[in-house]
């Protein structure tokens, strides 16, 4: 038993190495004083980071991605809340096939979603823009949002909602004062997840972005030009750092909220009973 544990620990570190080493080459080369990614390293430089700050086109694409991601996160999560609440709170006939259709994008390769939307938009006489990218991303994100939120809606005691209704609150205020605080961590998780999926999504954006590239599409266009690549790596390193901070923050919020939400809703309920 002791032996298995030790060999598993060794395996775990080797596997972590396999996961981390390729990714860590990117920040490493973003400080390397050469356009080419090869050993030996030629010297330390901040040049690529300076270039990153100068590059207007990159800023524009980053801004595009943030706008699309923000819209997608908000819109998908709202649709996700409707969906998750309906699915967990009501007995409905034909629930299973309807749910299956909503979850369908999870099991379709993304390129097919991209192609179908491309055909649809152009045949309908529309034009490609960030909005078409956002629509495609909503399609990909809603199933994830519902999956996250269903577990949150299922996890809490329905009698709290019933108690609020019995005490005379209408369904609107019951939602805001009881349901919302309890499912808030799920909503935050859904927002973060949808933003991340949209922010990183390439293939749908590649087909649908038209003349307004999102960040991944911009990066893709740079991958062929070695001169511009180190700037992309610098940005990649910054995004990795930023997402690390976001994860740490989200985890902190989640742990805090797990206690807070419950305490809050309990407190508001007891105060009403009194």
């Amino acid at each position, binding site marked *: 038993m002791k032996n298995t544990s030790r060999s598993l620990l060794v395996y775990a570190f080797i596997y972590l190495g396999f996961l981390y080493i390729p990714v860590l080459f990117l920040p490493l080369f973003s400080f390397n004083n050469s356009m080419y990614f090869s050993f030996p390293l030629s010297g330390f430089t901040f040049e690529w980071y300076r270039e990153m700050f100068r590059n207007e086109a990159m800023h524009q694409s980053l801004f595009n991605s943030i706008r699309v991601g923000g819209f997608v996160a908000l819109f998908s999560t709202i649709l996700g809340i409707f969906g998750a609440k309906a699915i967990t709170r009501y007995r409905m006939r034909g629930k299973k096939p309807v749910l299956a259709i909503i979850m369908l994008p999870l099991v379709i390769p993304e390129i097919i979603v991209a192609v179908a*939307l491309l055909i649809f938009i152009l045949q309908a006489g529309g034009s490609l823009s960030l909005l078409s990218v956002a629509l495609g991303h909503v399609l990909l994100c809603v199933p994830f949002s519902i999956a996250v939120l269903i577990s949150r809606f299922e996890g809490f005691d329905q009698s709290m909602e019933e108690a609020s209704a019995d005490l005379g609150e209408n369904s609107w205020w019951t939602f805001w004062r009881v349901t919302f605080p309890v499912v808030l961590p799920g909503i935050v998780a859904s927002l973060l997840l949808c933003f991340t999926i949209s922010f990183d999504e390439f293939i749908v954006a590649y087909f649908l972005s038209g003349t307004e590239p999102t960040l991944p599409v911009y990066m893709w266009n740079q991958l062929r030009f070695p001169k511009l690549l180190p700037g992309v790596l610098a940005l990649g390193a910054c995004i990795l750092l930023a997402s690390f901070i976001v994860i740490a923050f989200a985890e902190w919020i989640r742990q805090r909220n797990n206690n807070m939400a419950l305490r809050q809703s309990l407190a508001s309920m007891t105060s009403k009973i009194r």
Partner: protein
Amino acid sequence: MNIYHKTTQKLRRKLQRSESLKGYLLLSPTILVMAGIMLIPFIGMIILSLWTQIGYAKFDTTLTLNNFIVVFTNEMYRVLFSRSLVVSAMTTFLTVLLAYPMAYFVAFHVQRRKLLWIILMTLPFWTSYLLRVFAWKVILGYNGVINSGLLWLGIINEPITLLLYNPSAVIITLTHAWAAFAILPIYVSLEKIDRSLLEAATDLGDSPLARFFRITLPLSLPGVVAATVLIFIPTVGDYVTPSLVGGSDGYMIANAIQFQFGRGSNWPLGAALSLSSMAVVTVITIVYFLVSKTLTQNIR
């Protein structure tokens, strides 16, 4: 009594129906949006696949199955299809095989700070997917990390060209890029296993190995099945990895689809290719589900 019974039944049925109605009312925005941006484009794609391209953005709208005949008889598409499926299947198998011990370790041998391990395992996946794939081009390339490193150390005299631009490079890269999709579902299903079952097996005289194969592995199969489906379906249609590290020997079906919508500019054929690959993937997934279901039933 009978009448009373009937009226209550009627009332109950009505209530149930209205509950159903209320549910659908609440669900309607989600259904409408999803149907609008999924089903309608999908029907559009089916119709387009039956047309013929006769010029730039011009189609002959007489319905024909010609595009599908091309897809299923053309030698090139057969090669691309089988390569995509083999590469994805290999990737899925390898990813699950490599991730399983890791998930097992965290589920059963980490006592404190499990969350830290989970974050540690998923952190690399927060880099951009493009850059993660690109990293392997940097590693495996002609002037890449491995070649330049080995040259620098004097182990080889000239760069190895076998590393990049072949299906193996695609498999290695995908195995790295999709690892989180295997680790997490397998970890969750392992974590759910009732520990008293394991103790019971030990008390009844099972060796640790026998215990693993008789209890742990079968009970973790739902996670394994979920992981395989989550990895297999998207990797069949992956465009980025074959384009960056696959070379012409590693092109997959997504490259052909993209080509028809880009320089090839034969949209109906592209639509037929998309629909065919989706059909193939769906059939394989369903068969796989059925097989794995009967298999797990046999184990129990």
